């Protein structure tokens, strides 16, 4: 029999403070009112004052309400029955089916011991050359897609979800427009992946605190599937909404903000979640792809900036294309060494030449004299964008590499490419000048 505490001292923002004893840090509680009951979590203990973060917001709560503590931190049932289900940010069913059943798992499990992690070495093929050739996605990688509002980042995320080869897909939506949620759901249904997916969706109209729980729910469930030997892909969108929710709570708690109002522990909060991406020694793996919208297209904004320092690379989605500059998969060297002997050389060589082309373009646009070398680069750039960079291109890695060689052969003399002689001897297209 649990005690009720009724001395509520303060209600501000999403935080409610109550006088209580014997409460443990991060424990769950329920605020029981006449109209409704609201779940909450302990976020500060000070003497007998207990501060609670109320998930559904404090609207309508009154000092007459009572608080009951549950004696355990946040938990969610895990089992195969979760597959095909859709939940909201607080873990309640969104699909008009009964509450899930299974073994209860705690959210925010302790960190994985680094010595029990496997060195990632399996590539996830996506059929998108800008990913497969230039920045291969690797199992257990955590990778954000940096983008701005208006770019088709959700469409790209859905496409990767549909085409990637994974056992279980966990989708976490934060601050999603309801339309976007419906689109994701339709895409998953149509693509036939819904049966091995679990969705946790917080829409923009839901209480903001529930947004904070979405990544934790996704990762806790994903981790269990991974421990059970499954290869899990977690898709999160949009982590900027998550960070803004963190900011809101921190400001309510009167924490000193560090940068543009975000709390000083933003890096830690994000890292604790992204670092859940793992390849377990002797079990499955969990890969995390997350959309991060950059407010004002500013990569130095605290959210993309901190994210970039945590994740293993990033994709920039701009003008409907994955940008070759700045986009980076830090784990690619673990997988692109065994694909084909020319993979790495093409990866670097093509981008170096494309960078030179950008310089030539600038020259041309400024009205300067264009040398024959510039002409070559300009021609190359044009063709590279059309045949390789276009997001609509859907070909295998090997075909994409061959296509790059053809392109180089059409545009350059071998020595101009900066590629090693041995590779040129082997791969230079036979019809082209040598």
């Amino acid at each position, binding site marked *: 029999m649990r005690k009720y505490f009724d001395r509520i001292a303060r209600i501000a923002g999403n935080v409610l403070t109550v006088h209580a004893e014997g409460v443990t840090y991060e424990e769950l509680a329920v605020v029981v009112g006449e109209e409704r009951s609201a779940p909450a979590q302990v976020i500060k203990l000070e003497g007998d004052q207990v501060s609670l973060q109320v998930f559904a917001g404090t609207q309508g709560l009154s000092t007459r309400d009572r608080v009951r503590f549950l004696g355990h931190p946040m938990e969610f049932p895990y089992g195969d029955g979760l597959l095909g289900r859709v939940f909201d940010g607080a873990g309640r069913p969104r699909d008009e089916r009964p509450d899930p059943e299974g073994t209860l798992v705690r959210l925010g499990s302790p960190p994985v011991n680094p010595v029990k992690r496997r060195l990632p070495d399996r590539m996830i093929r996506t059929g998108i050359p800008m990913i497969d050739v230039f920045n291969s996605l690797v199992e257990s990688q955590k990778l954000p897609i940096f983008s701005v509002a208006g770019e088709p980042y959700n469409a790209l995320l859905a496409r990767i979800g549909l085409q990637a080869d994974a056992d279980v897909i966990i989708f976490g939506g934060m601050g999603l427009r309801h339309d976007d949620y419906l689109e994701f759901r339709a895409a998953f249904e149509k693509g036939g992946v819904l049966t091995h997916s679990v969705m946790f969706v917080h829409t923009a109209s839901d209480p903001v605190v529930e947004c904070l729980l979405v990544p934790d729910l996704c990762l806790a469930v994903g981790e269990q599937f991974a421990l059970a030997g499954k290869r899990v892909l977690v898709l999160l969108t949009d982590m900027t909404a998550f960070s803004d929710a963190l900011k809101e709570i921190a400001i309510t708690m009167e*924490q000193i903000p560090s940068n543009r109002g975000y709390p*000083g522990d933003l890096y830690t909060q994000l890292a604790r979640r992204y670092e859940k991406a793992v390849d377990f020694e002797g079990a499955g793996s969990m890969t995390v792809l997350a959309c991060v919208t950059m407010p004002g297209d500013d990569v130095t904004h605290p959210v993309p900036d901190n994210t970039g320092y945590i994740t293993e690379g990033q994709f920039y989605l701009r003008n409907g294309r994955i940008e070759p500059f700045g986009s980076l998969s830090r784990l690619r060297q673990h997988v692109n060494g065994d694909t084909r002997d020319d993979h790495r050389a093409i990866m670097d060589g093509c*981008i170096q030449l494309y960078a030179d082309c950008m310089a030539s373009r600038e020259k041309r646009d400024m009205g300067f004299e264009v040398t024959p070398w510039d002409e070559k680069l300009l021609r190359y750039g044009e063709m590279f964008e059309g045949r390789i960079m276009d997001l609509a291109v859907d070909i295998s890695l090997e075909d994409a590499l061959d296509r790059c060689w053809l392109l180089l052969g059409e545009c350059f003399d071998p020595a101009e490419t900066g590629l*090693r002689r041995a590779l040129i001897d082997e791969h230079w297209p036979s019809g082209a000048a040598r």
Partner: protein
Amino acid sequence: MRGRIVAVFGNLVVAECEGPVMQNAVARCHRADGAQLLSEVIRVHDNRADLQVFEETRGLKVGDPVEVSTDLLSVQLGPGLLGQIFDGLQNPLPELAERHGYFLPTGGSTPGLREDRVWQFEPAGRVGDVMQAGDTLGYVPEGIFKHHIMVPFGWRGRFTVQYIAYAGKRQADEVIAEMTDESGATRNVTMLQRWPVKVPLNVSRERLLPSSPLVTRVRMIDSLLPVMRGGTYCIPGPFGAGKTVLQQITSRNADVDVVVVAACGERAGEVVETIQEFPRLSDPRTGRSLMERTVIVCNTSAMPVAAREASVYTAVTLGEYYRQMGLHVLLLADSTSRWAQAMRELSGRLEEIPGEEAFPAYLESRIAAFYERAGAVRLRTGHVGTLTIGGTVSPAGGNFEEPVTQATLKVVGAFHGLSTARAHARRYPAIDPLDSWSRYAGIIEAKKVAQVQRLLRRGNEIRQMTAVVGEEGVSVHDYATMLKAEFVDAAYLQQNAFDDVDGSTNAERQELVFDRLLAVLDMELEVTEKEQARAVMVKFTDLFRNWNYVAMGTPEFEAMAGEINDLVALGGRDPVLEDVA
């Protein structure tokens, strides 16, 4: 000394204590389920102590008992550190994995060194010898080194050896010597001793000016921006510029005896790479496994924040310990910004008045004190030991004006600033050769280095000029200078880290290639057309780049050197190229 918890907020716990409390003392919070959470006193006011808890505080409650010790946070020193993987508080991770599986437990404190491990002890002193702290009592073999068993560093005064163990197998915690101090009191010495991590460990005759270059086999660093043994350097750079890759390459190739890798608040995957690859890689100096000379201290970003600070200090203390044996040690800290952020988080919870970007006011002095622990020292035996510290900095938004970068630049001897523009253009290492600097002398004559640096600067000026006036606006001579600067970058400064040969260039080869490079630069290009100049320099760049991939000492290496010499002799006017022109 006991107390009780009165408040919990994140990793900050406030405890009410009954007796005297020492600042920075270690404390343990007893959770209801029996777990003991390690923490440190960081502020005392009246009878209340603020504790930073090194582990997750979930599950603590008001009223839980706290036990405050009289010890400072310290590490265990002794044989068996090399090859080990510790967390920030010196818990051995492989042992934790064996006992607890996939996840790191809370309150699972484990001794850093096995007390029951047996070592082959060999005495170095005799009964009656008078010794001081840091003097060697004997040796045990640890991998490729003779590990010195030393008189505990904290002992003050002179001690006479009363008993010393014979050569033979001894357990680490066995008494190997008995010594009496000046008042006649007896003290025992084992192979293990403790040292507080926040106090610099340096028992030496004098501190020396760093004088020998530390060869990293990264051409740009060794030739243009050298580091010295006993010196300090920092690598600030935005994300994606290659800080960690550069650190990893350095940890493999650096010409030192021991490498301590401190992964502080960074990605776990990077540590895994080191853990799994090092045992398979061989040390370029000794041919033995790289792991035998490496200690890894890791507190990755998902691990508790407060232990991040501890991890940096733990690592530097281990480095200082091996320096005491007359070894050359390199500490690579990645990243010091995460440590600074941990200080900021805590400072915020303590409600201290924030400084710039909410970092605490003591940020600069903490960073300075940390880098000052590096240095070359002459030990009491006359041997020289060095500790070099290289720290990466992760500036917010890649902006070097931020407090951590600026505080670091004030105290280091070399600055290897990484540039996004270079990284985007896939020019690795992405160190900006113009912005970066070094106060040390390296393996290449200063006069030659200055010549190349002048050329790089001039080339950059001309490049900027062409952006305004176009290539047609500069003379053929200037254009050729720009191409030469470009050639230095492409043919020498850029290095393919994933190629076995190109990825690691030893000092001898650097000197040789650098001279060839100068020969090309000194060559007057007899061309009248810019396109001609470009063709010549493309040819040289291609030759050098291919040369870089060929192992030194092979016939192919000599053949290509000959080819380059011939082309230089011809002033670049290859008959074939003439035809093209």
